[in-house]
Structures are given as structure tokens and as C-alpha cells.
């Protein structure tokens, strides 16, 4: 099976009709299990106290806020290069989900930062680039809504997505090359010495799986809606032309 088969809306609808409910049910299971495990059955951190429980929301949402933009970037490039409508609609569908994840990451980060750093916010590289990414998300959604012609909207939002990708990458890697921020390095690492303790790691992995599956399920659902909305728009135009 090739990825390009999903450029055909019928194929995409048939595939997602089967897999969207699976993704959503699995995401609900992972999120319920992961969050209950993390909230009720993990100990406090010796330095951070009970605030460490925020990690099960903050890390997966921040990770998916960036990855959602990367997915939009790939879909936008496919639109710009190969002009497949489903890819443009998938990018549009992903944006509000990305907005939600970014908002959760910003909120939980601020509320975690206050007791740990003594401030809700700092204009440091990772936080600032993440805020700019959030503003890019809002601009992206607004641009889609503002332009009536769907192909023009897809072109312009794709360009905006390319530009915003700088901040998506910055928000991920800023801590590696700007050693002047409050934010610590990556939570997850392949190096056992740097990775967080297993007692926090495993429920965190379940929560990350839940967020990934939720993103996939919601993007499937919203892309299906966009495809149907496009068909509806075409039918309404045909009706108007017939009546005129």
C-alpha cells in the first residue's frame, strides 16, 4: 500500500472509516490508564514534590504540539509539490488540534514553572519560541478562515507553515544550543543516565501513546469533515448555478 493512495478521497474515507474509531478508542484507553497511573500510583519527586505529576500532561502535549506542526509541514509540502487536495485538508484539520496541544503545554508549563522557577513565564529561548509557534498556529487557522478560494488558502497557509517550521524546530532544539534558559533539557533520552526514572518513565510513555493516538484519531475525523465540507460546497455551488 502506498501513501499516495490516500490522495484519493474515496480511499482516504474508506481507510479512516475503519481506523479512526480504533485510534480514538485506543487513545482513550491509553490516556485513562496513563493519567490514572501517573496521578495516583507514582511517588513525588524528591525535589519537585507532587508537581512532577504535571509531566504526564506537559511533556506529551509539548511533544505533540511540535510534531503536529511537522505533520502539517509534510502535508503542506505534498500540497505545494503534488497538489493533492487531501493533504492540504489534512494540514488544515491538524491545526486546531495543534493549537489545543500547544495551549495545554503553555498552561501546564506556566503552572509548573511558578513553584519550581519562581515565575510563571520567562523570555527564554524554548518558552519564547513555543509562544511564537502558538501564534503561528493561530495565524494559520485564521488564514484558512479568511480566504474564500480553497486552493489559494491552501497555497498561502502552506507557505506560512514553512515559515513557522523554524519556530517548531527552535522550540524543540533551543535548549540544546542556547544554554541561557530556565527550561531543562529533554525529558526522554536514550542515555539511561539522563533519562527520567522508570517509575515516571513508563506511565509517561503510556500518556505519550495516548496523545499520539488522539492526534491521529482527531486528524482523521477532522480531515473527513473537511473532505465532506468541500463536497458540500461544490454541491451548493451547483445548486446556485442551476437556480440562477
Amino acid at each position, binding site marked *: 500500500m502506498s501513501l499516495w493512495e490516500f490522495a484519493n478521497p474515496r480511499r482516504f474515507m474508506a481507510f479512516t472509516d475503519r481506523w479512526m474509531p480504533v485510534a480514538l478508542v485506543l487513545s482513550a484507553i491509553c490516556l485513562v490508564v496513563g493519567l490514572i497511573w501517573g496521578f495516583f500510583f507514582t511517588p513525588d519527586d524528591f525535589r519537585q514534590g507532587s508537581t512532577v505529576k504535571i509531566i504526564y*500532561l506537559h511533556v506529551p502535549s509539548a511533544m505533540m504540539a511540535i510534531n503536529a506542526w511537522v505533520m502539517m509541514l509534510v502535508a503542506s509540502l505534498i500540497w505545494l509539490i503534488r497538489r493533492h487536495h487531501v493533504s492540504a485538508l489534512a494540514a488544515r484539520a491538524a491545526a486546531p488540534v495543534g493549537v*489545543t496541544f500547544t495551549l495545554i503545554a503553555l498552561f501546564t508549563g506556566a503552572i509548573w514553572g511558578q513553584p519550581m522557577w519562581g515565575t510563571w513565564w520567562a523570555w527564554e529561548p524554548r518558552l519564547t519560541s513555543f509562544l511564537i509557534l502558538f501564534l503561528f498556529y493561530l495565524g494559520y487557522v485564521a488564514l484558512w478562515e479568511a480566504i474564500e478560494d480553497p486552493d489559494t488558502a491552501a497555497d498561502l497557509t502552506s507557505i506560512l507553515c514553512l515559515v513557522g517550521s523554524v519556530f517548531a524546530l527552535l522550540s524543540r532544539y533551543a535548549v540544546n544550543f542556547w544554554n541561557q534558559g530556565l527550561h531543562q533539557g529533554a525529558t526522554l533520552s536514550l542515555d539511561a543516565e539522563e533519562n527520567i526514572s522508570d517509575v515516571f518513565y513508563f506511565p509517561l510513555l503510556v500518556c505519550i501513546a495516548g496523545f499520539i493516538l488522539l492526534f491521529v484519531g482527531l486528524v482523521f475525523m477532522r480531515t473527513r469533515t473537511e473532505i465532506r465540507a468541500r463536497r458540500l460546497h461544490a454541491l451548493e455551488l451547483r445548486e446556485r448555478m442551476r437556480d440562477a
Partner: protein
Amino acid sequence: MPDLGKYAVEVLSAYGVSIALLIVIVLLSAARAARVGRQLAEAEERADG
């Protein structure tokens, strides 16, 4: 309920707001899917009729 100590407000508000936002995006997505699906069915019925 675990003892959250002096950070109870921070932890509970983080969970409350995050879960609320997740529920909102799921409900909004489902509601729009249902509305567009219904409108499309009506439009297709008119086109066929």
C-alpha cells in the same frame, strides 16, 4: 486521592484545565463532523431528487 501537599492547587488545576481542553477539542470536532455530515446528506438528497 494522593496527598499533593502544598502543590495541590497547581497539580489539580493543570489536570483540570488540560482535560477540559482535550474534551472541548473532541466535542467540537465531533459536533462539526455531525453537522457537516447531515448538511451533505441533505444536499445530496436534493441533488438526486
